[in-house]
């Protein structure tokens, strides 16, 4: 997701550390170090903003120009040390500095709490009513020498997951881990994708804008089989990361079956008769 932010952050952190040590040794005061940390934070803000939103060149130029102006302005303000000798001005500035620290700190805590809460977030799962047994398997005698698409790569949509965000801020939602089991057990692959591309099913995240929704399709990749291969049910089981590795599809508990999304598998004959 991040192109140049992480390398820039690491390089800047190392540079900051060196600058802090040198400044600390020369100045023997705390405030030059704090100015350095504030500038470091500002540079990170600019790089993160440009990188994460993949801003266009006009916006990048604007941000860089505003940054230039801001840095010169702050340099000028800091150079006006005569203010610190005026007692009246100092009393006024003392209050401004105090609230300048307190208000952003409170706001950071509030934003952190808002970010952690799931206000206005809803997840709706819409599984398909049934799938055909023939669609679940491909012929194992596939000839790898033929330059055609491998049949197992054709995935089969089984469930849509709609994540809705009814809140004023965008949200990042991490996907649940899913395990696919079948009755009788067979090994099917699992895939997550939307119109923007595919996701890693384990621990990936999607960002949902304010008052909008995102639909992610869960599909299974077909398994190698023959004319005798058949399953009667597909269980889509939501797990946490630790359970994923311990899930035994051959010995599912009744609770796991009850909690799972169950999809009926029909043979082609049943469907044509019905």
């Amino acid at each position, binding site marked *: 997701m991040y192109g140049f932010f992480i390398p820039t952050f690491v390089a800047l952190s190392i540079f900051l550390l060196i600058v802090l040590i040198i400044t600390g040794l020369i100045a023997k005061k705390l405030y030059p170090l*704090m100015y350095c940390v504030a500038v470091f934070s500002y540079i990170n803000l600019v790089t993160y903003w440009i990188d994460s939103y993949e801003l266009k060149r006009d916006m990048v130029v604007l941000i860089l120009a505003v940054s230039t102006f801001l840095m010169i302005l702050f340099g000028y303000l800091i150079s006006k040390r005569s203010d610190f000798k005026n007692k009246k001005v100092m009393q006024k500035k003392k209050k401004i500095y105090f609230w300048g620290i307190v208000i952003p700190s409170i706001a950071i805590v509030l934003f952190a709490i808002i970010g952690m809460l799931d206000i206005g977030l809803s997840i709706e799962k819409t599984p398909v009513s049934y799938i055909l047994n023939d669609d679940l398997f491909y012929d194992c005698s596939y000839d790898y020498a033929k330059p055609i698409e491998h049949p197992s790569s054709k995935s089969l949509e089984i469930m849509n997951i709609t994540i809705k965000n009814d809140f004023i801020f*965008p949200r990042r939602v991490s996907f649940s881990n899913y395990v696919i089991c079948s009755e009788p057990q067979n090994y099917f692959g699992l895939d997550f994708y939307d119109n923007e591309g595919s996701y890693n099913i384990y621990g990936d995240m999607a960002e949902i804008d304010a008052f909008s929704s995102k639909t992610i399709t869960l599909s299974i990749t077909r398994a190698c089989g023959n004319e005798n291969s058949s399953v009667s049910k597909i269980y889509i089981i939501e797990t946490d990361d630790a359970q994923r590795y311990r899930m035994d599809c051959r010995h599912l508990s009744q609770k796991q079956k009850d909690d799972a999304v169950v999809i009926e598998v029909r043979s082609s004959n049943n469907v044509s008769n019905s």
Partner: protein
Amino acid sequence: LKLESIFYIVGGIFAFATIIYFAWEYLITFSRFIKVIMLVLVTIALYFCARELHRRDM
């Protein structure tokens, strides 16, 4: 070393641990918008902190 300094140091260690743990566990789950806003606020708070230290000539 004053007695109150021990509590301040331990408090500082807890604050540092809270920030590190928060960043490790929660920051990744925040949307880009919230992260940008938080970075803006951190920058403002750090600037005023530096100004206050400058005022006190510390």
